[in-house]
């Protein structure tokens, strides 16, 4: 009887549940259709961008941080932020730029410069296809190029570019990663001197730098520089396929104005793109052409075995002038104030958005070669021939939108251009110039990226518009808001908006690569046995504290869950104390850290198998606790210790150290 009652109860309960669910569903549906909050398109966008917990994104996207000096690593299509890689910045999170091992990476001829404006990114490539070995980034303010090791996702090399300012047309790299380039958006006297600003036309010059990249190690070396007319060299692209020996730098300010450029540099109908045959130039330099300039610049590199960076100051370099490079350098007239010339996947078409002309000009590389062959010159500037505009254009995209800026390409012969003023992205056919589709973005896009969209093999699935203005896209966060990016599905005939996600700093450009190309190579930890760090402590037996005058070196180890030594006595006020902290761990994703009371340097974090050093100068006698800052284990909170600091002239406390000695006085 009882059992029967239970069954009846169960039926009633489940019946009620079904009815309730139906009611809720109906309510939801009516609510939605009435409010128009959810429609079928958005649902499919949600499905397309949803990466379930524990699953992986299809692409890694690297977005530059602009004035943050960092690179942000996102997943596509989810828009999730995975990591921030400090490059031209000090990072309190990792200790990059604070630890003695990483500080040299920020050295320049102007001194230690822990900031730069990081604009553009380039993933290394082979045969104009991304290979994912390294990522290159430019420093815009104090001209530099950095190399980021992609297996470790960390900055391992920086090189300063002398004689120039505002390294904006950088670090664009050639089809086989032979060269990275730099070019100044400011012309300055070369070599720099205190001339009158009014003497711009006479004294100011442009410098284009070609940085040679070692194909095996990735090490950078300044190959040569090119002295060119004093315009503002803005952006660059190497050719690929048939055009792979050429590099194209757009410029503005053919007017050579030095004040109120917004007006004075916007007068001419055309500006100039400088086309450079870098292969021939490299051969010229090899044959001994060019002048040797005395200069000073820094080359900084992290040794992979010790993981310690060092600085090399270089004092000479080779500069090619118009006496040397005849036959290798030409000017291409380009629609008013262009902001970059991009080369399509075939290498035959070069597209340039005339920022103030509201058209995208498509040049033909074949026609350019023919014009050079036929000497179809308009005129020449400083002995550089200017090719006839009508002889080199293939077609143009008429009315793509207002303020066309940057182009990327898919794998079906289409180009995509961002329009800053009309705030949209336009899809066009590269061969015909016909506009195919247009989609609004929010708001005012600068660069855009398609995974592999600047190579011979784009993955034409997603496009990310990197917008400059945020306004009402997210919950407001005061006057300064993170920029917004839009993920757009470009797999069909019509572009579809899939997702908005905030980007930190100001992403100027980005690169994306298939996750499966990087994921297997990602470093899990550093091999402690192979470490050649001069202050490494490879086992707890080797822990020690040494004194040389007022310099004290603490050879400390960290392993779950103790620091050794954790009691240090007899440090004196005014000592320069080096903590060389080695993580003895050999395990993935287990990090330790170090911080000390009153330490004027932020925490440093130490990954498995590496050694990091901080300097501390105690100012008062007392007890100074230190601890591990990275929640490494269940007993992380117990991972701590004490330093006793005595007066500068006290000699009664000898230097001593211990761990696990619980003797009491």
């Amino acid at each position: 009887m009882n059992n029967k009652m239970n069954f009846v109860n169960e039926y009633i309960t489940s019946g009620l549940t079904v009815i309730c669910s139906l009611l809720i569903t109906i309510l939801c549906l009516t609510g939605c259709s009435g409010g128009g909050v959810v429609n079928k398109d958005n649902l499919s966008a949600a499905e397309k961008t949803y990466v379930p917990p524990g699953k992986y994104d299809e692409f890694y996207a690297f977005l530059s941080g602009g004035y943050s000096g960092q690179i942000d690593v996102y997943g596509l299509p989810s828009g999730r932020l995975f990591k921030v890689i400090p490059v031209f910045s000090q990072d309190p999170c990792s200790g990059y730029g604070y630890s003695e091992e990483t500080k040299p990476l920020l050295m320049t001829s102007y001194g230690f410069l822990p900031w730069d404006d990081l604009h553009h990114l380039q993933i290394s490539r082979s045969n104009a296809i991304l290979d994912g070995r390294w990522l290159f980034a430019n420093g815009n303010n104090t001209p530099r190029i950095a190399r980021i090791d992609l297996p470790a996702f960390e900055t391992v090399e920086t090189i300063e570019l002398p004689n120039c300012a505002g390294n904006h047309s950088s670090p664009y790299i050639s089809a086989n990663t032979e060269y990275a380039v730099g070019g100044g958006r400011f012309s300055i006297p070369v070599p720099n001197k205190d001339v009158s600003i009014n003497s711009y036309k006479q004294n100011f010059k442009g410098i284009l730098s070609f940085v040679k990249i070692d194909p095996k190690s990735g090490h950078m070396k300044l190959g040569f520089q090119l002295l060119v007319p004093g315009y503002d060299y803005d952006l660059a692209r190497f050719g690929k396929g048939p055009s792979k020996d050429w590099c194209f730098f757009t410029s503005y300010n053919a007017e050579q104005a030095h004040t109120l450029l917004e007006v004075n540099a916007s007068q001419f109908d055309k500006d100039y793109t400088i086309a450079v045959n870098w292969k021939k130039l490299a051969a010229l330099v090899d044959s001994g052409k060019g002048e040797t300039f005395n200069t000073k610049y820094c080359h900084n590199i992290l040794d992979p075995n010790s993981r310690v960076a060092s600085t090399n100051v270089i004092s000479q370099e080779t500069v090619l002038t118009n006496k040397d490079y005849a036959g290798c350098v030409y000017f291409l007239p380009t629609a008013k104030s262009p902001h970059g010339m991009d080369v399509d996947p075939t290498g035959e078409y070069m597209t340039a958005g005339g920022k103030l002309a509201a058209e995208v000009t498509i040049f033909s590389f074949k026609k350019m070669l023919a014009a050079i062959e036929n000497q179809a010159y308009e005129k020449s500037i400083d002995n550089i021939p200017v090719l006839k505009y009508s002889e080199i254009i293939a077609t143009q995209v008429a009315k793509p939108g207002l303020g066309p800026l940057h182009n990327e390409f898919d794998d079906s012969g289409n180009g995509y251009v961002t329009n800053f003023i009309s705030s949209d992205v336009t899809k066009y056919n590269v061969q015909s110039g016909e506009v195919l589709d247009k989609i609004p973005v929010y708001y005012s896009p600068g660069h855009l990226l398609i995974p592999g969209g600047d190579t011979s093999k784009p993955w034409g699935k997603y496009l990310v518009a990197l917008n400059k203005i945020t306004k009402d896209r997210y919950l407001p966060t005061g006057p300064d808001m993170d920029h917004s990016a839009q993920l757009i599905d470009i797999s069909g005939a019509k572009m579809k908006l899939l997702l908005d996600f905030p980007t930190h700093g100001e992403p100027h450009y980005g690169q994306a690569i298939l996750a499966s190309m990087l994921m297997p190579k990602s470093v899990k930890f550093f091999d402690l046995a192979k470490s050649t760090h001069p202050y490494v402590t490879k086992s707890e037996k080797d822990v020690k504290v040494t004194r040389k005058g007022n310099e004290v070196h603490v050879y400390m180890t960290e392993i779950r869950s103790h620091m050794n030594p954790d009691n240090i006595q007899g440090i004196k006020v005014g000592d320069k104390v080096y903590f060389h902290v080695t993580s003895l761990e050999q395990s993935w994703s287990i990090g330790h850290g170090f911080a000390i009371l009153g330490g004027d340097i932020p925490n440093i974090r130490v990954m498995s198998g590496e050694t990091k050093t901080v300097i501390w100068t105690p100012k008062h006698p007392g007890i100074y606790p230190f601890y591990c800052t990275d929640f490494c284990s269940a007993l992380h909170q117990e991972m701590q210790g004490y330093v006793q600091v005595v007066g500068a002239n006290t000699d009664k406390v000898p230097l001593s150290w211990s761990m696990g000695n619980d003797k009491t006085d």
Partner: protein
Amino acid sequence: MTMQTRVLASISALCLAGTYFVPMWYIILSAPQFPEGLGLNIWLHGIEGRSPFDLQNINLLNHYIGMADIVPAQLIEFKLLPIAMLIPLSGLVVSIIFKLQKLYLPCALFLVLIGIVGLVDFNHWEYVYGHNLNPHAPIKIPGMVYDPPFLGVKQLLNFTAISIPGFGVVLALLATVFAYGASINRKMKLKGGSHQLLANLGVFLFMCLTLSLNSCANLLSPQPKAIAWGIDTCAFCKMNIVDRQTWCELSNSHGKIYLFDSLTCLHKFSQGKKNNITKMWAGNFVPPHKPIDINQACFLLTNKRNGSMGQCILTFANKQEIIPYQNMGRMIFSWSVLKLALDKSFYSSTVSNQ
């Protein structure tokens, strides 16, 4: 000596030689924060991590619970085993070359001996490894020991430990079978007759049984199972088992273990299955709530237990343990009396009348 015999003996020798080149046993550990897993490969001549630093990381994690480091160089077994294996191997080789037919059986028997001694030693080492805990360990869980399973799967705190034989054990077994086969082949040639073969097969099966005895140990001496709190369900009422003070278990003659959230459920479940039940346990009310044999336990019927609303039966190991709690309810000193009480619904009336 026939060709067949020599082929059998050669295969045996090859299999035996192979045991030097493949792991004998695997211990695999996985935990929520170790999705990639940690593992130990046990070879004839030593232990190493499945990945280069697994051994180091296992030692590192084990120091929290006070387990000793595994230092392969300190384990005498890994010096003896490769030498011990050489004895039957060289025996086989010598008998193949010099046609010493009488040596095959001793070789096979010696292999069986190594197998038994090896496995008993392995089991013993696991016991010592899991029980020998540093009293100053940062994490101490009363009553908890950490022997890895001898064979199969076991939950050790956040780690699921799996222990399985490696290809080396398979090779050693094959070597034994073939060595034995060679000796049978010889006897059959001498005496003939299928009864001899049958008798020999019987001996072989007995050997196999001996080897696998340990894995079947649960049938002979059943052990209570660790309950996954909030996940395992009561075999009778199907509710999730959450109460660590009232749980109980029983095992049947098939070696199967049933879990219950209360003795009431266990009793109702067991009615009509009396002959089938081999053992019953209930968690001691006194921390650390170790399982105790129900047939030797004392019980307290109460509705005054802290943190629980209804009536319940608490279990104690003996009368001394129950005395401090006597004011909480009614004491019953044997399972048979308690059953009587449960059968007659004596339980609820007794408790409510208090």
